[in-house]
């Protein structure tokens, strides 16, 4: 049965942003990261901070339940109808990378039902450090860590930590309780990322929320201006091989089927 698209309410596009969706669709922003680091909460924070000026839709990829979608609906930050849950067949990793069909269809449906949207945020099911979004699904992605996972995680690297468009070090308010030096963790992350963006976030710290907000608006602006190119963090982060010539950075960019027999 063809779904009938509800009448879209006429709203004005954010004036600070160039053009009105020249790409013809919303910016698709992925949010990935291990279980419990605060992905859903961060999406709620984005909705709270930008819900007035942007038309937002959210897709969650839950593993066992539609818990994340229900959490976000009950947070009251967005019309519950604009939050959709997608099943992942117990493979959250596959759903954002190897077979993005279910998420792409859900994004298309959301955009059709609430046309026009400015931003569709897709939450990955909590997975491990290697789970990143395919550029076939999202235009940009945020990888989230939290201080409670330990101060060394940022240093351990991985494709999301190394090369997501933004790395968020979340729950900084907990740092004193878990003995983590946030400054150190952010510095480690910045080094691993060759100075790509890092935000140290706590939903209770207004300043950090403002930083997140302006990062999102920045990407959206570049996306609309046609200046944003979706980056693939890749299934593997670039890493350093020591050898007699002093070593080289091995980027995997041109060797997707590279054999990983060597020890890292």
């Amino acid at each position, binding site marked *: *049965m*063809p*779904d009938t698209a509800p009448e879209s309410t006429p709203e004005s596009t954010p004036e600070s942003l160039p053009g009105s969706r020249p790409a013809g669709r919303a910016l698709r922003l992925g949010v990935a990261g291990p279980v419990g680091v605060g992905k859903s909460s961060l999406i709620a924070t984005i909705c709270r901070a930008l819900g007035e000026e942007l038309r937002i839709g959210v897709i969650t990829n839950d*593993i*066992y*339940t*539609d*818990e994340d979608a*229900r959490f976000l609906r009950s947070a009251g930050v967005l019309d519950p109808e604009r939050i959709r849950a*997608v*099943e*992942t*067949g*117990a*493979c959250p990793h*596959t*759903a954002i990378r*190897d*077979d*993005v*069909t*279910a998420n*792409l*269809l859900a994004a298309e449906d959301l955009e059709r039902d609430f046309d026009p949207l400015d931003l569709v945020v897709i939450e990955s099911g909590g997975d491990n450090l290697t789970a990143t979004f395919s550029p076939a699904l999202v235009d940009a992605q945020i990888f989230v860590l939290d201080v409670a996972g330990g101060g060394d995680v940022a240093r351990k690297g991985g494709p999301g930590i190394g090369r997501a468009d933004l790395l968020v070090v979340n729950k900084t308010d907990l740092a004193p309780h878990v003995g983590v030096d946030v400054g150190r963790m952010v510095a480690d992350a910045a080094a691993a990322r060759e100075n790509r963006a890092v935000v140290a976030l706590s939903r209770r710290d207004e300043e950090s929320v403002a930083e997140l907000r302006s990062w999102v608006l920045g990407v959206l602006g570049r996306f609309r201006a046609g200046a944003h190119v979706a980056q693939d963090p890749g299934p593997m982060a670039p890493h350093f091989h020591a050898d007699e010539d002093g070593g080289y950075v091995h980027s995997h960019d041109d060797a997707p089927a590279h054999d990983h027999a060597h020890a890292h």
Partner: protein
Amino acid sequence: MTSPHALSVAMLLADARLPSGGHAHSASLEPALLGGLPVAAVPAWLIGRATTVSLVEAGTAVVTARLLGGAAGTTTPAGAVPADTIPHATIPHATGPDGVRGPAGPASAVLDRVVDAWAARTPAPALRDAARLLGRGYLRLARTLWPDAPEVRAITAYDAVRGPLPRAVVLGAVAGATGLSAADAVRLTVYDDAQTAAAALLKLEPLDPLTPARWVLEACAAAEPQVPRVALCATPEDIPASGSPQTEGWAEAHALLSQRLFRA
């Protein structure tokens, strides 16, 4: 470019790694287990599906291929076309609002008849919805791989106006476009259903992963005597009407749950 052998196409379509959204589906297995089907009954249940609901799907695919491809009725065009081969005929282009017209009438009218016949044999809305979601995933694949095939253009035009087609119909169009024989389209449908359930079973129950592989072949073997009959289906009325009311009930109950790994 030379064309791939139809068997290669069949293998591609049957591969669980095919990125068309299938990994989030369990071919009704999760609903069945949650509904109380004992694991020990799964082999018999698979045989039951292979000889009932899978044949409805298979017949739908065969009839779609035939009607879109121009072999309406039981007439086989003169020439050395084996009886079970779906002729790869050309549909004259761009006639009327449907854009595409086949010998059995405007493509959209043909598709309407097939969809009606399929829907009448698939009473559970949850199963029809899931089949349409899978159909959209298959259509994305078909549009990417065989964009110029008349059968694919016909279903693309239909989808844009009338909404999503069920997977069996899209599979039929692909079979027509790629020269897959009717008998192999039936076998592919039966195999894909059983293998989808078998793969899902490993996510739901502890089991030696090789055990369900045998069950898949047993299900295929059980369907084999039916293959010639289903491969001869030529009109929507010919599509088998072998249903499974218990599966339909389980599917409806499953669609209401907030805890599930699979879409259906």
